[in-house]
C-alpha cells in the first residue's frame, strides 16, 4: 500500500512554495535550463552496460562483476536500469527504487522527507516535484552484511536534471555498508544532479556510507543529506571528489538523536580546473554521551575554489565529545581554500567540542626527509600528498586509490 495522498499532497504543496527559493550557500542555478527527460531500458547485468558507462561506473567505485557486493542498484539518467540482490541476503536486505518503495510501503510516510526538509530550497523542491527515482535500501533488524551494497547514479545525456531521492534504513542492531558512485559517462556533459539522501539508523545500527563523485567541467551538483542516528547507532560517511565540477554545494547533517550515538565524516576533496566546491558536514549532538568527528582533507589545484565547512552543534543535556579536523593544501597561486569550522553549544554545559583547521603548503622538511631515503622530489611530493588524502576508507576500490595517485601526479608538480 502506498503512502497517503494527504501526506504527499502536503509535501507537494510545501515544495511548490519553495521552488523559487535560493539556497543559503553556493551559486544559484537556473533549473529550467536542464529540462531533458531521458528514459532507458533495463540491462541484464552491469557488465552489459555500454563501454563508456561501464568505465565511468568503474571509476566511481562500482564493481561491475558484482564480486564482494551484497547487491547493486544502477540508474542512468531518469531510469532504473538494474537492481540485484545477492541471493545470500534475500529476506535480510531490500533494494529497489524509492518510487517503487513509496508504492509498496505505506509506512514509508514516516521516513520520506522526514529528515531533509522538502522546502529547504529550490533543489529539494525540484527533487520532489520532478522526482526521478533514487534508491531505497533497507537492512532488516540484526542483519549484518558482510559486503557493501553498491549504487550508481549515472548521467549520460546533456541538459538532464537527475533528481534522485535516496532512503537508507538500517533497522535495529543491523549493519550495512553502502558505496555510491555518482558520475557522468560524457566528460563534456552539461546538467545537474540533485540528490536527496535520508538515512535512518535505528537503535544499535551501523551505517558505513561511502560516496564517490566523478563529475565534469559543466556539471552542477546539489546533494541534500541528513542521517538520523538513534541510541547506540553509528554513522560513518566517507566522501571523495577527485574530478572537476562546475559547482557543488552540500552540507550533510548527522543528527545524533539517541544516547551514545556517534557519527564520523571523512571528506577528501581535490579541486581541479575552475571547480567551485562548497562542502561541509554538520553533526548535531542531541543525545547524551554522543560522539562526533569530522575530518576533511582538501587540495586546491588550478583555479579551483573550495569552501570546507564543518559545524559541531551540541544540544545535549549530558556529556558529548566532538572534534573537527580540517586541513588544506593550495597547489596553485590561483587556487583558494576557505576553511570554516564552527563550534556551537546550545546550553550544553558538559559538551566538549574542539577543532583544528590548517591551510599550508606541503612541508619542505617532509619532502627532504623522504628524499634522504632516495625518493625523488617529485615522488616525495606525490607520496606525501597521497598520504595527506589517505583516510583509510574501507572497501574503497583500488581504482579510486589509483585515481587519487594519477590526479596527484598530474597536479602536484605545480606546488613544487
Amino acid at each position: 500500500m502506498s503512502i497517503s495522498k494527504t501526506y504527499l499532497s502536503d509535501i507537494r504543496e510545501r515544495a511548490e512554495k519553495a521552488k523559487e527559493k535560493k539556497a543559503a550557500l553556493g551559486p544559484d542555478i537556473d533549473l529550467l535550463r536542464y529540462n531533458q527527460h531521458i528514459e532507458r531500458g533495463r540491462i541484464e547485468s552491469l557488465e552489459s552496460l555500454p563501454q563508456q558507462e561501464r568505465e565511468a561506473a568503474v571509476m566511481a567505485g562500482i564493481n561491475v562483476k558484482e564480486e564482494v557486493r551484497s547487491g547493486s542498484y544502477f540508474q542512468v539518467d531518469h531510469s532504473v536500469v538494474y537492481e540485484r540482490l545477492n541471493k545470500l541476503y534475500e529476506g535480510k536486505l531490500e533494494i529497489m527504487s524509492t518510487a517503487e518503495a513509496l508504492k509498496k510501503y505505506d509506512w514509508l510516510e514516516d521516513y520520506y522527507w522526514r529528515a531533509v526538509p522538502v522546502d529547504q530550497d529550490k533543489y529539494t523542491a525540484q527533487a520532489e516535484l520532478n522526482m526521478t527515482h533514487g534508491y531505497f535500501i533497507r537492512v532488516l533488524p540484526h542483519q549484518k552484511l558482510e559486503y557493501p551494497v553498491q549504487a550508481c547514479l549515472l548521467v549520460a545525456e546533456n541538459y538532464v536534471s537527475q533528481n534522485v531521492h535516496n532512503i537508507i534504513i538500517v533497522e535495529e542492531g543491523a549493519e550495512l555498508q553502502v558505496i555510491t558512485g555518482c558520475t557522468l559517462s560524457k566528460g563534456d556533459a552539461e546538467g545537474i544532479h540533485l540528490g536527496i539522501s535520508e538515512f535512518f539508523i535505528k537503535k544499535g545500527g551501523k551505517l558505513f556510507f561511502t560516496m564517490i563523485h566523478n563529475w565534469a567541467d559543466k556539471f552542477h551538483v546539489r546533494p541534500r543529506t541528513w542521517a538520523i542516528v538513534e541510541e547506540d547507532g553509528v554513522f560513518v560517511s566517507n566522501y571523495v571528489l577527485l574530478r572537476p565540477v562546475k559547482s557543488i554545494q552540500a552540507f550533510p547533517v548527522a543528527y545524533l538523536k539517541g544516547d551514545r550515538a556517534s557519527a564520523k565524516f571523512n571528506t577528501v576533496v581535490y579541486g581541479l580546473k575552475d571547480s567551485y566546491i562548497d562542502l561541509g558536514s554538520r553533526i548535531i549532538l542531541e543525545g547524551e554521551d554522543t560522539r562526533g568527528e569530522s575530518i576533511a582533507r582538501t587540495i586546491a589545484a588550478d583555479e579551483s575554489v573550495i569552501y570546507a565547512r564543518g559545524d559541531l552543534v551540541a544540544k545535549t543535556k549530558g556529556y558529548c565529545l566532538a572534534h573537527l579536523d580540517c586541513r588544506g593544501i593550495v597547489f596553485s597561486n590561483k587556487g583558494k581554500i576557505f576553511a570554516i569550522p564552527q563550534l556551537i553549544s546550545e546550553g550544553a554545559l558538559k559538551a566538549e567540542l574542539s577543532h583544528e583547521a590548517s591551510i599550508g603548503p606541503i612541508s619542505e622538511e617532509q619532502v627532504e626527509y623522504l628524499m634522504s631515503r632516495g625518493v625523488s622530489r617529485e615522488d616525495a611530493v606525490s607520496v606525501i600528498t597521497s598520504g595527506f588524502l589517505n583516510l583509510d576508507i574501507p572497501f574503497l576500490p583500488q581504482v579510486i586509490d589509483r585515481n587519487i595517485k594519477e590526479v596527484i601526479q598530474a597536479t602536484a608538480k605545480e606546488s613544487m
Partner: protein
Amino acid sequence: MQEMLRVENLGLSIGDRQVLQGVNFSMNYGEVHVLFGPNGAGKTSFIMALMGFPKYKVVQGRIYFKGEDITEKDISERSRLGLGISFQRPPTVRGVSLRKFMEIISDGTSKEDTLKIAEKLNLLNHLDRGLNEGFSGGEMKRSELLQLMVQRPDLVFIDEPESGVDLENIALVGEAINTLLGKEDKLKEQKRSALIITHTGHILDFVNADKGYIIFDGKLICGGNPRDILAEIKKHGYRRCAVCR
C-alpha cells in the same frame, strides 16, 4: 683501505651565517668515525651538508663520495649513490605508514626480512602508523635505523643516536647500528661506514669507532682515538679546545 668520503676545505653557511669553515675530512670503507662537540658547534650542519640539505649551503670546497664529486647533487641523488642519514628529530609524515614507506625505499629487502628486523627493533606495532606519528624518542631512533636497514646505504650519518633514548634502549640502538653496518658479518665483508654524532659518548659502549673528532666553533679539530677524546672531554669539557685549535 680505500677512501669512501673526502671533504676538501669545506665552508658552510646557513642564510648569512657561516657555520663551518676550512673543514678537511676523509674516511675509508668500513670505518666508523665519531663527531663530538658542544651544542651549536656545527656537527649537525656538517652531516646535513654532506647529505645535501639545501639549507646548509656549501660556500667553499668540494665533497667527494666514492671518487665522485657530489657537491652539486641533491639529497635523493646522494642517497641513491649510497649515503643515508638517521635524523635526530625526524619530521612526522601523517598518512604515509612506516610499512608503506619501507616498501618504497627498500633496496631488495623482502617483506619477511623487513618484518623480522621490525620485530627485533620492537616496531611491529608501529608499522601501520604514519612516519614518526606519536613515536617516542627511542621509537624514532629505531624507526630511523629500521628504514636505513631496508635502504642499505654504504655510508650512514647518525645524529645523536642516544638522545631521548632510555638506557635500556641504547643497547638496542647500538645493536641495530652494528647490524646496519654489517659488523656481524665476516671482517672482509665489512664495507659499510658510519659517521656518528654523539654528545654523551654512551653509544661508544656499544659501537666500536675507529676515529673521533671534535667540531668546535665551526672548525674540525682534534682527530684521534675516540675514547681518548671522550675521556678528555669528560675531564676538561671543551674549554681546552679553544686553546688547542
